[in-house]
């Protein structure tokens, strides 16, 4: 099956794509953490504009970006709407029962902007690299071996198991089953999940044996090297200054 992978357009040439993966992970993570805690609305708006401009610099197709970010942004927008109606303060629109307050609007908007900026940066970090490049960079950053391997294998098996699960669902619907939230439907879903777990467990054993037979020792072998260039240093410094700047600027 074909999946909308996050790294589908990792082969494009652009400044962001050519940025050293190790430096990219560090600087983009710094940006995410910095953007998520911005205190003022104008700075948050600037952060969103900055991350949107990074999308254009990275030359990713707009349709692809839209498809990936549509639902997450709708989800964040829902928080904004809830905040508008539930925070107490000066009422600007509405009557006694349903009312939008100024404080709620401001706080909700701030959260919406911060979350959107952080979301776009996180998306760009993964979308402008092949996934295995990121993994190699994570090893080079000395992240715990076990944790990185667990991420890699889990990611790989999600797609295998989605296929397997789709097959099981197809065969059930061929027999006339519809997913419904009643007593019978739920216990059937329970059996379906139980079967998925049993199949996965057995698959895990097979995978483990085949890996052992191919010489797996629990350590990855790498022969690639990502050297840092001058442009990487320049970009890193720029991003870190920006990450600190959005917090220093309002103080000045």
């Amino acid at each position, binding site marked *: 099956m074909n999946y909308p992978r*996050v790294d589908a357009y990792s082969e494009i040439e652009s400044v962001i794509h050519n940025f050293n993966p190790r430096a990219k992970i560090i600087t983009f*993570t710094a940006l*995410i953490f910095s*953007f*998520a*805690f911005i205190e003022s609305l104008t700075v948050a708006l600037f952060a969103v504009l900055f991350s949107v401009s990074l999308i254009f610099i990275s030359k990713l197709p707009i349709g692809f970006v839209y498809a*990936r970010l549509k*639902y*997450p942004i709708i*989800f964040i927008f829902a*928080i904004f709407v*809830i*905040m508008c109606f*539930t*925070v107490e303060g000066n009422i600007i629109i509405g009557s006694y029962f349903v009312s939008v307050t100024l*404080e709620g609007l401001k*706080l909700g908007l*701030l*959260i919406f*902007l*911060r*979350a959107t900026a*952080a*979301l776009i940066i*996180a*998306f760009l970090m*993964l979308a402008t690299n092949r*996934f295995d490049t990121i993994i190699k960079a994570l090893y080079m950053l000395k992240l715990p071996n*076990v*944790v990185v*391997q*667990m991420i*890699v*294998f*889990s*990611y*790989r*098996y*999600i797609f295998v*198991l*989605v296929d397997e699960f789709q097959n099981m669902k197809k065969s059930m619907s061929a027999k006339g089953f519809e*997913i419904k*939230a009643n007593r019978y439907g*739920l216990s059937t*879903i*329970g*059996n379906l*999940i*139980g*079967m*998925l*777990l*049993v199949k*996965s*467990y057995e698959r*895990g*054993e097979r*995978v*483990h044996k085949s*890996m052992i037979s191919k010489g797996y020792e629990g350590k990855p072998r790498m022969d690639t090297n990502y050297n840092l260039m001058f442009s990487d240093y320049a970009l890193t410094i720029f991003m870190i200054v920006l990450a600190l700047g959005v917090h220093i600027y309002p103080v000045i």
Partner: protein
Amino acid sequence: MHISDGVLSATVVTGGWTITIVLAFLTLWWRSQESDITEEIPKFSVMTAAFFVASLIHLPIGPTSVHMIFNGLVGIVLGPLAYLSLVVGLILQAFLFQHGGVTTIGINAMNIGIPALLSYYAFKKGYDFGISEKIMGAFSGGAAIFMTVILLSITLLTTGQEFIGVAQVSAATHAPLMIVEAIITGSVVTYLSKVKPELLPIKIHKNEKSMEGSKYGTEF
């Protein structure tokens, strides 16, 4: 369910990361005392992927649809390693599927991981006490969601009183999920006890009885 980036205060986020890192390493160390951890990696990863896929099922309830968390079930099947499994799941969701937040992985892992660990012990203790695996499974599955909602509300309210509305909305949407997960977890545990008891942290007493049923349960 997940708290996105930008909602929580820096203190709460730092606290979440600290607790998550400590708990993840503690449970990993604990498991590595019992067995070789490199041997566990492939099995653990396939199971993590399986839970990830299972949590993608959308169930229509009234006008909306909910998707499962299954932290109780993860806890029952993976034991202490459940915490790390949920962390890995959240990392994959945040980075590769743009769902949930990056800065909040720590706090989200705490909110669903601690109930997972507790329901593992509840399940084990309850079964040793003589309660049937079906009832204990349902109880653990439901209680895990209940604890998650409590923890979620606490994290939202420690950030600020403004979030009381968000906390109420999320509690209301999780109420049906609690019942749904209780029934499904009970049914999965019953199924596993018949088909593959070694996946559960218990020794099934009535092996002879379950052998009479068909290999893949009665409904199939």
